[in-house]
């Protein structure tokens, strides 16, 4: 029984390492690639490896929603827009270190240091003692029950947010089409 548990532990650690490094590597690729098309493809890898991390944290429903909503719907929209605009390349690391690049890297490093220091101060104390979980933890039934009981307001507000985003998208597309028409655009 102990042997089985330790083999399982090693497997979970291995999966965690692969997923974590894929996650960070693809995030760096998104930031570094010149072509927005490749950046969007790298973000799909980032989202998929995040879904693996969610599964390791027993969040099955969120992992499934991540793959469906993000890696599916949102990324299709992104790739569509990149294809439509014919993604211009801008090289982030080309032309030697400018003040712009140095400032950006310094600010990101400051944020990272802050976060790691805060986690390090708190680590080992409460962060390493997880509560036991029920079998239903993270299942669709549990999430659905919470959405329709404790978090009903959040559920309803989310639908209004999505509706207003859809209306906003339509209005933005409509106005820009009007400016395309030279007969209308010439008018004050």
């Amino acid at each position, binding site marked *: 029984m102990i042997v089985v548990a330790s083999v399982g532990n090693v497997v979970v650690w291995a999966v965690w390492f692969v997923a974590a490094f894929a996650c960070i590597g693809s995030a760096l690729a998104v930031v570094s690639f010149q072509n927005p098309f490749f950046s969007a493809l790298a973000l799909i890898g980032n989202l998929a490896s995040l879904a693996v991390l969610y599964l390791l944290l027993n*969040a099955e429903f*969120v992992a499934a929603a991540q793959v469906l909503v*993000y890696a599916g719907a949102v990324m299709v929209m992104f790739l569509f827009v990149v294809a439509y605009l014919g993604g211009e390349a801008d090289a982030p690391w080309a032309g030697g270190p400018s003040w712009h690049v140095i400032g950006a890297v310094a600010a990101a490093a400051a944020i990272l240091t802050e976060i790691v220091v805060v986690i390090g101060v708190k680590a080992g104390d409460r962060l390493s003692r997880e509560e036991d979980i029920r079998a239903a933890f993270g299942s669709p039934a549990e999430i659905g029950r919470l959405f329709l009981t404790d978090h009903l307001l959040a559920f309803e507000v989310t639908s209004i947010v999505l509706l207003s985003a*859809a209306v906003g*998208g339509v209005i933005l597309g409509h106005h820009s089409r009007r400016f395309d028409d030279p007969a209308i655009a010439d008018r004050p």
Partner: protein
Amino acid sequence: MLGPDVTWYLVISGILFSVGALGVLLRRSPLIVLLSVEIMLNGANLALIAFSRLHGESDGQVFAIAVMAVAASEVVVGLGLIVAMSRRNLALDVDRLTSLRG
């Protein structure tokens, strides 16, 4: 819990957040700025789900799904703005958008 404890997931989430912030500050193309914002949101989501596992309550996951819905709305509006910019023949470069004297 099998595997690494919640601390390590939080470290990954912090790294993702700062890589996303690096992308927002570094890149000029608004498309990649939007992608970097997505990375930042996902870093925050990973922290929410890790804390949800730490406390053994599913409420953090509900919060993460709400964040996902807001991120999807943000992408719709952001991409709509970028398409509108390109249709008005504005440069797709966040440093050159200075109509608001930014």
